[in-house]
């Protein structure tokens, strides 16, 4: 934040902080500490995907051929668009344009929901193609290639964990939008939008790593 905030926009100091600046700093540092743990969680999954590719190249490429590359690509565009609307919400909050900020937050939630709908369709198509090896009652399409199960199962773990983060993010965003639409919000809690924005951009960042590691490099 390089520019001074306009009148009526700011943060109400909580009593356990010496100053508003310290309070903002602590909130940003706190969310970063949490995001780092999330980064390590997803990094371990992506690392296992790379190892699976190194150890079982043919089986991984065969399994990756069944992934819906274009849905993954469109979903990446959707999340990049949602990052733009989130950045716009942050900037509107700094400008004191509350209604525009609320609309940008709703647009972000809608784009997040669109991502989940497309992901759900992708899972449905996988189900139709018998690409769910963890379903004991349903034959697996690549049963002749046991090693492919490793990659496919990992794909479901990584993408469903990401989807869970996105779903939680949408729920929190909608709750915060409801609060943010109330008069006086920007005078007391402007930094909530900035702190939440970090989480949303991070979800975007994780998918930007997941798409090439799972869909692109294994083609």
């Amino acid at each position, binding site marked *: 934040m390089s520019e001074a905030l306009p009148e009526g926009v700011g943060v109400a100091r909580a009593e356990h902080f010496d100053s508003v600046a310290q309070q903002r700093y602590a909130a940003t540092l706190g969310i970063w500490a949490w995001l780092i743990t999330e*980064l390590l969680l997803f990094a371990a999954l992506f690392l296992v995907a790379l190892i699976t590719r190194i150890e079982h190249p043919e089986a991984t490429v065969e399994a990756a051929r069944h992934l819906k590359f274009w849905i993954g690509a469109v979903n990446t565009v959707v999340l990049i668009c949602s990052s733009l609307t989130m950045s716009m919400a942050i900037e509107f909050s700094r400008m004191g344009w509350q209604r525009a900020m609320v609309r940008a937050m709703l647009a972000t939630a809608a784009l997040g929901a669109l991502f989940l709908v497309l992901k759900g369709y992708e899972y449905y198509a996988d189900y139709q193609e018998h690409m769910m090896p963890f379903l004991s009652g349903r034959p697996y399409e690549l049963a002749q290639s046991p090693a492919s199960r490793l990659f496919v199962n990992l794909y479901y773990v990584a993408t469903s964990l990401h989807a869970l983060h996105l779903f939680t993010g949408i729920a929190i965003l909608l709750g915060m939008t409801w609060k943010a639409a109330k008069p006086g919000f920007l005078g007391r809690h402007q930094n909530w939008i900035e702190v939440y924005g970090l989480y949303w951009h991070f979800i975007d960042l994780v998918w930007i790593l997941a798409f090439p590691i799972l869909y692109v490099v294994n083609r």
Partner: protein
Amino acid sequence: MRNPIHALSSEDRALLRRHMRKPVLTFLALLALLAVNVALGVTVPFAYTWALEMAVVSVMVALILLVSMEVRTEPPLVKLFSVLGFFWVAILVGMTLTDYLAR
């Protein structure tokens, strides 16, 4: 509560342009880089395409971190936290792949 859609003054338009420039440019850069990766993924023009794809992804991640997540303008301790996260990931990936790639 101000509505930015209707009846913007020239001052407001200038303010809007100033605030939106960075997010819009980042958005366009990310889309362009994604287009490069998708094109590489579809065509696979040479044997080590994956290395170029991962390089493009690294630029995308750096853009999100430095510009969208504003690490560039954060205080030193926040910068340290964000760098440390990726440093630990580098140790995790580096040490594990050293083993697998050297077998």
